[in-house]
């Protein structure tokens, strides 16, 4: 048994924000939590861990992570992903099916799950594809994949374009209660696009991705959702233009959820500067107005989840002319610290932010994680809210070092991470 003391416990799901202790039983489950849990009333044989006034939050649930296994192990494997995640306080990870081969059948899914279990300490929940081989033409075996343990379905970096196919997906998967996750971007409108369409694309001479490319897919999907009422989640939105659509449908009472990448909350298109390919992202970084609108949307509940959108890319894929360079940034280990920036600069309340990282994604996924309820797995991140540090490329634990925020000064760092009550990371 273990006892965490001298810590401010923040658990949005149970509405806890108090100084106290957390008692973990021998099975790695939470036995008691709160201000009444002290050294004095703890069982005699338990190990006392002094958190030195740092906060304790539920382990982070990251809903959008790319891992290179299978097929791109040189970019990231389960072991390196696990190490990177733990150093960022992330204990549950949802992985994308954009692997090689793609996760669109039971045997690959089963292999991936076993491999993940063998190699990583974090809890990995693979998604399977919405369509076979990510081609957008034929739907995947939602039923069979569900039995084997796909937590949901998405085409990851791709978006199902064909309206008929999308209609059939909604219709067929409804009875199976499958979670459908869409990356909203119209292919034709965004074809060859490298960055946001606007001042910067005009100045740099790059083909832009208009914000309407995102909105148009959200509008289509929500129209279909109104018809079928599935479990539906928008993986990442990037623009202000999409928000009124989401608001309208939420006001109508339609149930669905929305995510945003931490990159779109912390950076804007100006940061791309003189063709910095590490900031070539998908969805693209947009304007400062978009960024501020997305933060407001978190505050008023239009956006439910913040994700790292962790996409490890080797240097060779980034050392190319901007148009040819790969998209995405490594970010799982900086997700929490960057999110805390929004608290420190008074953009958003701490509780709201932690909610978007913990219990909100867990509820969408229907897993018992992201909370400190009694009986739940003791997945806990102990965080020093104020610790200053600087992001250095060399210290990144992920196999790929393509961070979008090199040299950024951060405030707040993970000190300890527990999974099932075991101390698996210590700074």
């Amino acid at each position, binding site marked *: 048994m273990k006892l965490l003391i001298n810590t401010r416990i923040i658990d949005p799901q149970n509405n806890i924000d108090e100084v106290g202790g957390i008692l973990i039983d021998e099975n790695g489950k939470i036995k008691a939590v709160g201000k009444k849990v002290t050294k004095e009333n703890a069982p005699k044989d338990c190990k006392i861990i002094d958190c030195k006034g740092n906060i304790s939050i539920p382990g982070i649930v990251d809903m959008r992570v790319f891992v290179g296994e299978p097929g791109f192990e040189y970019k990231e494997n389960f072991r390196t992903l696990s190490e990177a995640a733990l150093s960022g306080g992330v204990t549950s990870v949802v992985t994308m099916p954009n692997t090689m081969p793609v996760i669109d059948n039971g045997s690959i899914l089963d292999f991936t799950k076993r491999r993940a279990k063998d190699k990583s300490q974090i809890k990995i929940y693979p998604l399977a594809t919405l369509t076979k081989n990510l081609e957008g033409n034929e739907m995947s075996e939602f039923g069979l994949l569900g039995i084997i343990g796909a937590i949901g379905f998405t085409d990851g970096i791709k978006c199902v374009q064909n309206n008929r196919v999308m209609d059939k997906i909604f219709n067929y998967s409804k009875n199976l209660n499958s979670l459908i996750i869409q990356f909203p971007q119209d292919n034709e409108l965004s074809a060859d696009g490298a960055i946001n369409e606007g001042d910067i694309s*005009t100045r740099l001479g790059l083909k832009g991705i208009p914000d309407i490319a995102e909105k148009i897919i959200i509008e289509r999907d929500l129209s279909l959702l109104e018809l079928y009422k599935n479990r539906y989640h928008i993986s990442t939105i990037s623009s202000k233009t999409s928000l009124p659509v989401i608001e309208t449908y939420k006001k109508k009472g339609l149930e669905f959820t929305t995510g945003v990448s931490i990159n779109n909350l912390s950076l804007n298109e100006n940061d791309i500067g003189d063709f910095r390919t590490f900031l070539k992202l998908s969805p693209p970084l947009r304007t400062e107005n978009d960024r501020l609108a997305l933060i407001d949307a978190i505050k008023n509940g239009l956006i439910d989840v913040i994700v790292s959108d962790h996409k490890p890319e080797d240097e060779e894929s980034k050392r*190319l002319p901007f148009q040819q360079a790969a998209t995405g940034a490594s970010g799982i280990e900086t997700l929490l610290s960057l999110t805390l920036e929004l608290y420190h600069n008074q953009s958003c309340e701490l509780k709201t932010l932690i909610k978007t990282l913990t219990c909100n994604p867990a509820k969408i996924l229907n897993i018992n994680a992201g909370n400190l309820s009694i009986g739940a797995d003791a997945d806990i991140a102990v965080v020093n809210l104020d610790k200053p540090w600087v992001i250095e490329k060399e210290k990144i634990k992920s196999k790929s070092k393509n961070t979008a925020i090199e040299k950024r000064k951060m405030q707040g760092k993970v000190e300890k991470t527990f999974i099932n009550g075991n101390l698996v990371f210590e700074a």
Partner: protein
Amino acid sequence: MQALWFASIELLLMAIQKEAVKFRHKHLLGIQSLSIPEVNFILDESMQFVDFNKREQKKLNILTGKTQINLFFESSTRTLSSFELAGKRLGADVMNMNVSNSAIKKGETLIDTAMTLNAMHPDVLIIRHQDSGAANLLAQKVNCSVINAGDGWREHPTQALLDALTIRIKKGRIDGLRISICGDIMHSRVARSNIYLLNMLGAEVRVIAPPTLMPKNIESLGVKAFTDMNKGLEGSDIVMMLRLQTERMQGSYVPSTREYYEFYGLDYKKITKAHPNALIMHPGPMNRGVEIDTTLADDINRSIIKEQVEMGVAVRMACLKIICGNKK
């Protein structure tokens, strides 16, 4: 005696200062990074080569012993030959890399190609590439100087400089002129470089294009945008026409060439909207009957397209001289 001594010191200091402000870059990657004195310095230097190029004996030894490599990833006739001639007239050893047959086709990256060439110790690399920013990327990786001969839709600085020189010679000034750039602005590096340069030199720059070929927020570059050609041309001193790429003619950006010509082709009727002494420019190659009336294009009273080509060699000689002379 003492006064004379001070005077000579002053002269020396002035000379050092003048040298310092003349041109402070190792590379010529775009107009955006240049200052007004630097642009004027290039244009002034170019002037002497304009006269020189008319002489019978056209060989100098300014760049003797220097190696210039023309690395063209896109096909080009006039820019490539212009750079080649410029280098040769200055006495440099010029090599044209035929990229279509080279290692790029075998999967080598731009950076690896650059590193290979770099190992041969060239003094200047002239690059044209289909991707915006390619010249900047190359410049970060090689030891020699890099001149951008066009990258994607972004910049084509020597074209803008030669256009400015042509205008300066033909009109005597650039400051205060109204210059209209017309055509496919969105995909044009020539338009972008000219917007930066002509704006910098005090012209009123206008752009005219169908809405589908107008980049978003083009006004942020300091121009007035028009979709009505007749309005855009009003009072223009210079009309700069741009080429419409074949693949953009039929239905994708404009319905057809004949519809484009009707609304955006420069003919004798539309040119009456411009200033009576307005001159016509085109970076070439022209699509006669698509963006410009064929007779108008050859009208010696109106068209200064041939002069542009002539100025091209002079401007590129000046750029090569300045860039190669700048090396430490």
